């Protein structure tokens, strides 16, 4: 009742400044809805159509033309993602450690800046670079190795930056205490800094994992596509992956192909959202230091 009675009073106080202010807030709210509604619709459509296409065959059969299952693509995405992390994590973490622990000079400034620039290079350019160098010149053809190295090039700057930022949050006194006891650099990093900073490092690795699972463009010309399960060869053997199914099968004029595309999109988006959410929760975890 209170609010109804006070409404005329409030309306009276609506001078032009108030009105503009109110309009501003309303527009900001609308802007938020313009972003939130498409996201919710994307999730709704992919989950609805993805679940409708679900069957046991997805996980037990390989793709057969435009039907069958997704076993080859699921395992392929796992192989490519694991490969990208195996190559990218040591390099990224090492670069992050270097930049945070020893990165005071001009070289580190340049590396930081170029790392930023590398994240801005379109993924298709990375893919074509790998095509020109590894697939053609080195003769690897479409292969697991060419695909994973390309993905690794994408994720290294992310892992490096997350590692650097989380290591920088560790208090300097702790390192000094270690050095004062005569501890070597490697032990200070491994035994003092990392035990405190690991959640941030892991967040970077998890976000990179999500990027790897969701990428398509850098893989088209490097990993190729295969209807069969991976046979363990690193080169001269193409491999399937889920995002290829989404892109390629939705263009086919068959129901079965569309169903596979939506099922693949469902798997990709669930994986990406779970990894992303996990990574964010990890970052917001309370810390002792």
């Amino acid at each position: 009742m209170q609010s109804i009675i006070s409404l005329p009073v409030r309306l009276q106080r609506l001078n032009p400044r108030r009105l503009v202010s109110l309009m501003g807030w309303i527009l900001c709210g609308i802007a938020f809805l313009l972003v939130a509604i498409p996201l919710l619709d994307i999730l709704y459509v992919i989950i609805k159509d993805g679940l409708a296409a679900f069957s046991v065959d997805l996980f037990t059969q390989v793709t057969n033309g435009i039907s069958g299952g997704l076993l080859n693509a699921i395992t392929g995405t796992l192989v490519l993602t694991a490969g990208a992390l195996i190559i990218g994590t040591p390099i990224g973490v090492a670069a992050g450690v270097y930049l945070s622990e020893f990165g005071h000079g001009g070289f580190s400034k340049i590396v930081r800046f170029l790392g930023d620039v590398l994240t801005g290079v379109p993924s298709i350019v990375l893919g074509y670079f790998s095509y020109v160098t590894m697939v053609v010149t080195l003769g690897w053809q479409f292969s697991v190795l060419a695909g994973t190295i390309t993905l690794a090039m994408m994720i290294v700057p992310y892992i490096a930056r997350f590692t650097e930022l989380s290591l920088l949050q560790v208090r300097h006194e702790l390192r000094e205490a270690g050095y004062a006891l005569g501890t070597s650099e490697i032990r200070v990093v491994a035994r003092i800094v990392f035990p405190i900073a690991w959640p941030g490092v892991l967040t970077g690795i998890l976000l990179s994992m999500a990027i790897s699972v969701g990428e398509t463009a850098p893989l088209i010309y490097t990993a190729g596509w295969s209807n069969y399960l991976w046979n363990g060869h690193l080169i001269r053997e193409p491999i399937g992956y889920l995002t290829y199914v989404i892109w390629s099968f939705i263009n086919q004029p068959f129901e079965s192909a569309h169903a596979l595309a939506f099922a693949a999109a469902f798997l990709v988006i669930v994986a990406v959202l779970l990894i992303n959410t996990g990574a964010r929760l990890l970052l917001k975890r309370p810390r002792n230091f």
Partner: protein
Amino acid sequence: MKISIFRLVLLCLTSLIPVALLAILIFLTHYSWSAILFNGVHFLLGKTWSLGNLYANPVMVHGLSVPVGANYGILVFIMGTLVSSLIALLLAVPVSLGVAIFLAEGVPPGSRPVLSLIVELLAGVPSVVYGLWGFAVLIPFVAHHLAPDLAHLLGFIPFFAGPVGSGYGLLSSSLVLALMVVPVITATVSEALQGISREAKEAAYALGAMRFEVVWKAMLPMIRTSLIGAIILGLGRALGETMAVLMLSGGALNYLPNNIYSPISTMASFIASQLDSALGDPTGMAVRSLAEIALVLFLIAVIVNVIARLLTGGFGRAVHN
């Protein structure tokens, strides 16, 4: 001080980052060198992309073997890239500003994490999933509702006049690009807004400004540089976007868009779609010309990103939201 092996190993691995960038530049230039010689400036200004007659014997031009009638001009793709990115920015910038203000100042701090999660999730949706959603939802919506309505309402402006086409084209591509760019701009802007000191805000309140006036008239001018940097960062993202545009652009070849519903191709989507046909060229000139497009796109992306990073003051802000 003696440099330890540990430090040396880290240094070597760290140098891989600049080496990677340099390698992209060198190898793309090297591979496309004969295409650069053959195409000349015409590459950037020509409107026709034609592989030539792949079945006739190749001819020699300036000492280079090329198919008869081969002509590689990428103006159509450069225009497609620029126009779609600019329209995407026109849509995304006001929306991003609104979202950033809404999240930074408009909602109670308690509900901020949940609401900003929505924007963060939007950034995590893979490009190809945007493409799939565009195919299933956006294209029909644009073809049956948005495009006819726009043509009806704004048809007096030449760029908005029909024919409205099939839904595949500039409008749909720009809409999806806008959606993908919003989280990039929003993250950088809200980071900058949250970095404004309490005293500066209080000073504005003390002058009698209302909450929205504080944001609009005092805080936004303070983050001007970051805002411009954020927009350019968004531009960089839109320029290089491949999969979603590939699935929604209609894949125009050899003609410039004449209205907002026209099919387009961007440099990135064209590279992704053309390798198969380029491989049919026995002289290899088509594949090398695609490498030249990749090189041009690389250079544009590097320039755009360098400007953006200089303005926003580093990568930490953009990623570590």
